[in-house]
């Protein structure tokens, strides 16, 4: 187990290296550069060259990478071109905001959707199953920004229950902070229910058809005992993997929700930096997201054998 964890951690080093190199290269392949964006239509070739030199962008890409990577090893992710803030504290501050939303939404969604998915599978082809699947499918198919906007119009404008714009940190003002997070969390929660419910149902269905379930039933165990002792545990494995995928994807996809609700999270930081070609922030964000993702997957994989004894950790 320990060896498995260590191997996995070592294995993630090349992953992160690949991410660093490709992000570094990819963003420099994209046309447009921070210097000309900052100068806009006022730029003269001389002023752009000036600014590029000041930002260290006049050197060749490998040299720039070498400098950046050297600093990275020292734990320095550099400084934002736009705001001139240090990148790492900036990312951590924004990440904390996004993480609150994503974790709470996925946790709540799993709590609702996994049991509901198992239930639907258990009662396959009944009207309960059909309606659960229909609800899940509908939730899944509403774009988050549309859903978010509908919530905003309804709870924010029509009922005036929740604040419409802005963000207050929970640390500063817990009550107001929570109120600001309700709608973004609700949006993601509703969306993810659809995703997780369907996967939980599918995995349970799979397991329910397996021989040992038939066997367990033949042994005369009650349906609920079969469901909980055998089906649920085994179906949780694939669902668990999916939750990992969902978490990882959400970190990238949350930008949309953060934009609708004007939440200064990591997703918005990344998208804004892409549009502003703020290279150090993009590189930092991507590496950070990749790192978090690798970490989440490691935890998921470490837990996998617990749920699925057929896979031996090695």
């Amino acid at each position, binding site marked *: 187990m320990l060896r498995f964890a260590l191997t996995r951690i070592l*294995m993630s080093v090349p992953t992160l290296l690949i991410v660093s190199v490709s992000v570094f290269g990819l963003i420099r392949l994209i046309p447009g550069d921070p210097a000309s964006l900052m100068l806009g239509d006022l730029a003269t070739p001389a002023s752009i060259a000036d600014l590029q030199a000041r930002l260290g962008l006049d050197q060749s890409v490998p040299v720039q990478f070498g400098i950046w990577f050297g600093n990275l090893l020292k734990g320095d992710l550099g400084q934002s071109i736009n705001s001139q803030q240090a990148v790492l504290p900036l990312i951590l501050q924004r990440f904390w905001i996004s993480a609150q939303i994503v974790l709470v939404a996925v946790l709540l969604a799993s709590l609702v959707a996994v049991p509901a998915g198992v239930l639907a599978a258990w009662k396959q082809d009944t009207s309960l199953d059909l309606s659960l699947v229909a609800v899940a499918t509908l939730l899944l198919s509403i774009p988050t920004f549309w859903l978010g906007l509908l919530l905003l119009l309804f709870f924010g404008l029509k009922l005036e229950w929740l604040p419409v714009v802005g963000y207050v940190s929970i640390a500063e003002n817990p009550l107001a902070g929570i109120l600001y997070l309700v709608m973004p969390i609700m949006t993601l929660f509703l969306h993810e229910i659809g995703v997780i419910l369907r996967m939980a149902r599918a995995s349970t269905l799979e397991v329910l058809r397996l021989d040992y379930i038939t066997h367990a039933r033949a042994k005369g165990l009650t349906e609920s005992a079969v469901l909980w002792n055998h089906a649920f545990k085994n179906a949780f494995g694939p669902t668990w993997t999916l939750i990992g995928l969902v978490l990882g994807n959400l970190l990238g996809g949350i930008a949309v929700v953060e934009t609708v609700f004007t939440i200064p999270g990591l997703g918005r930081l990344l998208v804004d930096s892409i549009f502003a070609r703020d290279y150090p922030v993009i590189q930092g964000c991507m590496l950070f997201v990749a790192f978090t993702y690798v970490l989440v997957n490691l935890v998921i994989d470490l837990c996998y054998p617990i749920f699925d004894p057929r896979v031996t950790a090695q």
Partner: protein
Amino acid sequence: MKLPAPNALVGGALIGFLAIVASVSAVWTPYDPLRLSFRAKLAAPSAMHWLGTDEFGRDVLSRLMAGAATSVWISLLTVALAVSLGTVIGLFSGYVRGWVDRTIMAFNDALLAFPGILLALGLLAVVGANKYGIILALGIAYAPSVARIVRGTVLSLREREFISASRVMGNSEAFTMLRHILPNCIAPLTVLATSMFGWVLLAESSLSFLGLGVPPPAPTWGNMLAGSRPYIGQAVWLGVFPGLCISLTLLGINLLGDALRDKLDPRMRGAR
């Protein structure tokens, strides 16, 4: 002769209708979907324009019909690309194991760790902002999820009796893989592919929302929905109808996918 399952019926009907609309749009739409009308901007649904007009006075129904073909085509191609790419990688990686597997998975995880937005932006900028760019970008972005799931299935199947049996019987590795492991991947892949169809439709509209979608003025449901946001207060129909189209299509695809999986499941086949 058994009647098809209700989900197959409803799903089939929805998708059938979509297919008909998409085909009809190739030869006929009530108005030219690109035709501007300065006098009929943001007109509410009426006898003239059944689903109203948009901010340029273009007929929403005509655009929805034309968009059906584009959106469905983009999503299908993207899913096909992601699934075939991912399956090949996942099967190979899960079956060979060892350092090859570890290397492939390192790349896979690296790709997976890219938020789709950046990958799409990067690739779109390099390939050019058109629908093939979107297909390529999203196809590559989603392939790793497929690879991971296929590899997971392979890993858990390897230990099963019928795989060892196949090997003991002297079947080649490739044969075992194609004959016994691939069919077992179909169920989880069908579920994934149908969800992915939805993801792609949504990803396309999210990209439009963030300003990176399929270049308008060619209509897709995604960019119609994204373009409707500023007008939500004055012209709800602009967003409601594309949103409804996306939702209904996904509903149809998912129902059909479920029905398909029930049919294709290899263990069900063995039981019959």
